[in-house]
């Protein structure tokens, strides 16, 4: 139930954002998140953005995984 999905903020209006979650546009509340920015990724849970997704950190994890695979099937 703590399911959260990553989505990209494509519009911000006050405390609300339109978030693209895998091609589906969702109205998401920003009431729980400080400093949400346009074009950034957030984790959406139960209609709220609960955290920003740090894209640099994501790339770092992807590089780590690629290193593990020894260069096969890199992302």
């Amino acid at each position, binding site marked *: *139930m*703590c*399911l*959260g*999905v*990553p989505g*990209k903020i494509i519009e911000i209006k006050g405390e609300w954002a339109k978030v693209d*979650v*895998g091609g589906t546009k969702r109205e998401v*509340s920003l*009431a*729980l*998140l*400080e400093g949400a920015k346009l074009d950034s*990724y957030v*984790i959406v*849970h*139960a*209609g*709220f953005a*609960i*955290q920003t*997704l*740090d*894209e640099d*950190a*994501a790339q*770092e*994890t*992807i590089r*780590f*995984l*690629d290193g*593990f*695979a*020894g260069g*096969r*099937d890199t*992302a």
Partner: protein
Amino acid sequence: MKYMDEFRRPAPAAAMVEAIKTLSAGRRGRLAGREIGIMEICGTHTHSISRYGIRAAMPQNIRLISGPGCPVCVTSQPDIDRLIHFVRREKKAIVATFGDMLRVPGSFSSLERERAEGAEIRVVYSPLDCLDIAAANPSKEVMFYSVGFETTAPTVAATIVEARRKGVKNLSVLSLHKLTPPAMRALVDAGDINIDGFIAPGHVTAVIGARAYGFLSEEYGLPCVVAGFEPLDALAGLWMLVKQLSEARRDIEIQYKRVVTWEGNRKAQAVLNDVFTEADAMWRGIGVIPGSGLKIREGFAAFDAEKRFDIGYDGCVVEEAHGCACGKVLKGLITPPECPLFQKACRPDAPQGPCMVSSEGTCAAYYRYERV
């Protein structure tokens, strides 16, 4: 989908499984010949571990134990019973809740059965939906039956704040929220199972911050890795944990760095603390754990269903349905196939206990992905 597919690739998964095997079996290594118990404390991890065959891929001496991490599953039977008493008595009330709650059996009925009998019960995706239901039904009381861990509780707190701002008069919340760290502490204190380390829940920790698990390493000498939910996240988290054990380290580490920080989401924490305060809570199968729940603060008493209605525990039954072993499953004492009802009297189409009802329940995950 971006930031999901990258963490579902087979090649790194195979390499990670090999690395875990090497660490755990190294002939001269610290872990050789030792049984290692790793508990994941989140239903989404349980689901992921079953679905992607991670349990089966682990070396023989690594046992993955599912903990009490599904909010629907840990909701106690008396808490279901008292809600059913409520809907039978308050014929003009609307109860809103998350979908999986409907089929959880109480001692004498379920919300699904009550709905078939005419009770007005709505399934919501977000607690904010309750504001619309309340606005559309001004002559009715709307009660949100609110379950969930630290990930969900701030969304409910924000909804209550919004309800007060809008002057909503016909909405209340029955808070059955539960907190993760006190449950981990209770399981370790009970000492019933051998836990060598924890995989901590990514989205709970996105809110509370990884520092919340410091007590595990400081007081109990247990390592803990906060992991994400895609299969590569879960595997990388397990590898980090096994690596710690092989090096006799007992640290708190973050695998899910793209979402989890040490401090967590301060704003969500602030909203949660404005509305809720810690309280004791009753967990199915475990009993009352001090300070493991959330109750609504006095300042928001107008939105507290406990204050607004007579919704006590009279006529509620604590004992589980005969034979149902959900309590033992939730504590990690047994796996679902060890329950005599599993796959026989208890199936997803006829669940006897909550662990088979919820898609994140351990029994449902085993039934769907690990049936032999």
